[in-house]
């Protein structure tokens, strides 16, 4: 018996893709949930406190309780708010934050009896360009949230966040150009393959300034401390999401943490050799590639939390000065250095 054509051609592939996406999004949501509890515990220990330890064994059920609480809370719709924009803003925040994961490769191409399998949802050749486009969408959520709420704190917060995010996006884009110049491809998987070998082949050494700029810009892009003037608890309460409560707030929260993990995994992929072990010899190669990738991601996530526990909040003029007067010149200089070196025997260093 033959299946109708439309089922074989459309319904089955879409169902298979859906299964893959759920297999990615569900662990991602779990990772977000547990990142919050790890954050609270870690910062607790850094400040000689204990952190959450009441819900479940040693506090490990805390994120479940938090999620349930937010689900059962009333979502407030301020009378002065523009209802339509107000409800679309959190969706525009969470949508791009999840969609960006479509092009993240989690490991090398494996040879299996069914053919070649690459652990990535969408094998797109211009994945880096796609990522840049999708992540810039997140800013609409922030701006719309602040404007629609029609509250003074919200609008100040969204103005600050908007200007800050676009400023650091430039530095981030220039840092990516350096990576592309070295790898000559826009495909993230191929960029990782171009870094094959031990840690001295990874891009964080020849592109050290770009590596630093990229990660710090990533921290600023996600509005995390010490760049969180858009939320600045002590001056504008919660910034652009001050009026949001319940699930509408939870979506902004999820998006922020999903973006933190995204920046971390991207830094690991582009600068730290992705799934390659630090030394291509026996004890290191026993650990599978995806595990290495997640370990490196965890390292950068730890940096996110460490920054938050260590640094006081920047002033706004300091943030803008760092972005425009330090990061952009540094990246421009380093792009020129790579370009010149490309024409000399030194080019081997960058390839």
């Amino acid at each position, binding site marked *: 018996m033959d299946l109708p054509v439309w089922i074989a051609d459309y319904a089955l*592939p879409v169902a298979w*893709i*859906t299964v893959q*996406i759920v297999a990615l*999004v569900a662990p991602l949501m779990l990772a977000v949930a547990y990142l919050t509890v790890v954050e609270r515990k870690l910062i607790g220990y850094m400040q000689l406190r204990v952190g959450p330890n009441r819900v479940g064994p040693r506090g490990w059920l805390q994120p479940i309780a938090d999620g349930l609480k937010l*689900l*059962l809370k*009333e*979502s407030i*719709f*301020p*009378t*002065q708010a523009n209802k339509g924009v107000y*409800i679309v803003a*959190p*969706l525009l925040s*969470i*949508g791009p934050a*999840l*969609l960006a994961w*479509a092009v993240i490769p989690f490991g090398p191409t494996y040879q299996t009896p069914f053919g070649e399998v690459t652990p990535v949802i*969408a094998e797109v050749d211009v994945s880096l*360009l*796609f990522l840049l486009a999708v992540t810039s969408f997140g800013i609409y959520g922030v701006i719309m949230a602040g*404007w629609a*709420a*029609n*509250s*003074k*704190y*919200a*609008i100040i917060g969204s*103005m600050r966040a*908007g200007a800050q995010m*676009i400023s650091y*996006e430039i530095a981030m*884009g*220039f840092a990516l*150009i350096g990576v*592309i110049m070295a790898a*000559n491809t*826009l495909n993230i998987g191929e960029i990782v393959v171009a870094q094959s070998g031990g840690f001295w082949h990874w891009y964080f050494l020849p592109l050290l300034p770009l590596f630093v700029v990229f990660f710090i810009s990533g921290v600023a892009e996600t509005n995390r401390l010490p760049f969180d003037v858009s939320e600045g608890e002590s001056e504008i*309460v919660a910034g652009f999401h*001050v*009026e949001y409560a319940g*699930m*509408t707030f939870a*979506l902004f929260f999820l998006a922020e943490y999903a973006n933190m993990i995204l920046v971390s995994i991207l830094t690991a992929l582009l600068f730290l050799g992705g799934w390659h072990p630090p030394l291509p010899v026996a004890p290191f190669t026993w650990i599978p590639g995806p595990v290495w990738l997640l370990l490196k991601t965890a390292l950068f996530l730890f940096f996110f939390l460490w920054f938050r526990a260590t640094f006081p909040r920047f002033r*706004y*003029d300091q943030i*803008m000065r760092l972005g*425009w*007067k330090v990061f952009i010149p540094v990246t*421009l200089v380093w*792009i*020129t250095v790579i*370009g*010149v070196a*490309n*024409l000399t025997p030194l080019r081997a260093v960058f390839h």
Partner: protein
Amino acid sequence: MLESYLPILVFLAIALGVGVIALLLNFLVAPRNPDPEKLSPYESGFEAFEDARLRFDVRYYLVAILFIVFDLEIAFFFPWAVVLDELGATGFVAMAIFLGILVVGFIYEWKKGALEWE
């Protein structure tokens, strides 16, 4: 070629779907007790006064304008960087001239104080 973008379309639907379902679930189970005080804009306990959409500093607007210039520049750089090895010296010099013009503009706006926030 184009079918490699199908997963992205499906992912887009699911990514938005996650948000929509979460909100719908919230509307179903959460209580709703609106109250004029609760629904007024939060201003640290004071009565909200005036419209929140005040005039804002022109520098935010300036940053947005500068961003467009530089983001376009990045968009031009991307394809160039991919084929840099095949372009050789000619490609590098051409881009150096382009970059040079933009750097002159960047220095100009710096000197003019467009990047000052003090």
